[in-house]
């Protein structure tokens, strides 16, 4: 099954952003994931055709980057940070607890296709450790209990909002479209800064007022 005319037109608009079209391979892969959920064969073939590359060249790029999935992932992709700082502060315990809860391990998806699990590396939110990402949205300061609630919410179709993100958690496909550069209009939702981001500023202000 090939992509629709509209989808192919979106691909052309992505290519047009760059002085050289090969640069569009990464956003195009994100776009394919937004349509198919992962990097499908038809996605690889179409990107190769659009960019005058071989399918092997596109696959070589796709397989290099961990965010591009060669197998379907869940509608909600859960990443537990188990790099050193998060792991030590609780990320390892959270990972174990999530495995038990879901009955899957890293790089697996629940049978209903709803939730997949990944151990992730540092996600640049260490002042909010331990950090969990769902569809690459921040869930800050997590505990095994809070992640269980998060998973319950996902299962019942009512996940809690990300800590620093839009008011409602979007699906894997929807967020993949954002990474392809297709705006969902949610930029102004959510906090401008979390508590930790404001710590120094607040201290500076209280110093100044003394």
């Amino acid at each position, binding site marked *: 099954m090939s992509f629709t005319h509209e989808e192919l037109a979106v691909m052309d608009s992505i290519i047009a952003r760059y002085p050289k079209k090969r640069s569009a391979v990464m956003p195009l892969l994100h776009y394919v994931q937004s349509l198919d959920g992962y990097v499908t064969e038809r996605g690889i073939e179409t990107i190769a055709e659009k960019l005058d590359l071989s399918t092997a060249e596109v696959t070589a790029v796709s397989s290099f980057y961990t965010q591009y999935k060669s197998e379907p992932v869940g509608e909600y992709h859960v990443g537990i940070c188990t790099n050193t*700082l998060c792991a*030590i502060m609780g990320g390892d315990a959270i990972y174990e607890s999530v495995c038990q809860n879901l009955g899957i391990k890293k790089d697996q998806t629940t049978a209903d296709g709803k939730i997949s699990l990944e151990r992730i590396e540092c996600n640049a939110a260490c002042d909010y450790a331990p950090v969990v990402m769902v569809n690459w949205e921040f869930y800050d300061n997590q505990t095994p209990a809070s992640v269980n609630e998060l998973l319950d919410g996902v299962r019942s179709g009512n996940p809690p909002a990300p800590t620093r993100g839009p008011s409602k958690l979007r699906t894997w496909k929807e967020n993949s479209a954002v990474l392809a550069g297709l705006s969902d209009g949610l930029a102004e939702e959510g906090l*401008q800064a979390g508590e930790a981001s404001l710590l*120094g*500023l607040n201290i500076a202000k209280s110093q100044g007022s003394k």
Partner: protein
Amino acid sequence: MSTLSPVLSAHWDEPDSFTIAAYKRHGGYGALAKALKSTPDEVIALIKDSGLRGRGGAGFPTGNKWSFIPQGDNKAHYLVVNADESEPGTCKDMPLLLANPHSLIEGIIIGSYAIRANHSFIYLRGEVVHVYRRVQKAIEDAYAAGFLGKNILGSGFDLELTLHAGAGAYICGEETALLDSLEGFRGQPRLRPPFPAIAGLYAMPTVVNNVESIASVPSIIEHGVEWFQAMGTEKSKGYTLYSLSGHVANPGQFEAPLGITLRQILELAGGIRSGHQLKFWTPGGSSTPMFTAEHLDVPLDYEGVSAAGSMLGTKALQIFDETTCVVRATLRWVEFYKHESCGKCTPCREGTWWLVQIMKDLEAGKGTEADLEKLLDLCDNIAGRSFCALADGAVSPIISSLKYFRAEYIQHLTEGGCPFDPVASTLFETAGA
């Protein structure tokens, strides 16, 4: 006098801080108008004079980098912003972009004008969707306001700005790997020379700067070189973002003049978490050799940290208390480097696998003391033998932890396992969870 100096973070407490309206309310885009009235060379000279140095790790003077771009060569020039923040412990650019993306956009326009670039790029790591939204919206609003596009503010200067999402590869934070990735290849570092200033993006003269470096530019244009130089130390001028994380009472971002010490920051932040003591810490991410309590008074500027045997890096202060097993921490970092090695250079690709195997045995108490020497010997054969600094980063935690905590490694061997309870280092009770 205040020991902190919020500049980029000065208005983060306003709920609409990320909007163009809020940015302009505080004088935003005034520096751009000012810069466009100067010549590009005058802008470069000003940034050179300010002493601004790269905030992404290496500390190279930003103005010098700009001045390396050949002029009058009739080639396209590019400014590429490295927003691929992924060095473990580093968490400054993402909150900056969430709360104040226009400081980066304004800095990009000024920097592009200075180096005569008409198309610039932001390479943002892909695992931060909301940051992408904020930056994308900021770019759209800057276009709508006439700060991007054709004939910016009537100056005759044109600039296109493209936001590009990465896809989860730490190595793309290395500037030449980033350029390969942006060109649509696997992100693998290039041999240098030629440096990006001569042959960067699409083999054209290119400047690659960190988010914070570029975001600092408008403030320097606005307030002047003297204002900037009044902060910081002799060779490390200005203010910067320090990110405090780990076993502290209050983690967070601190914008302070370069040269502040960890002791000062901890005093402001309420110290180590209650009932515990500092054991080890990184001054600038996991690639910078770790410090201990004896380094609390090291000035956190480029020279001070270097003189004490580490690097300022990204100013990612990761704090670990006495409950933390340094062998476990080091192993996890080395596993990270193994996972993120791009595979181009043999010493890194193969060496990091060997490091992980030996470290795993040591943590499980299965090795012998001779393994410690083997580990150091391996490190010696890995560091400095690859195209980029990833491998150097991989050996940093090993060499530094062995320097300060050799006894703890040996304790694992004599006790036949890890003597630490991992539950004690978590922030919560795991029982019943």
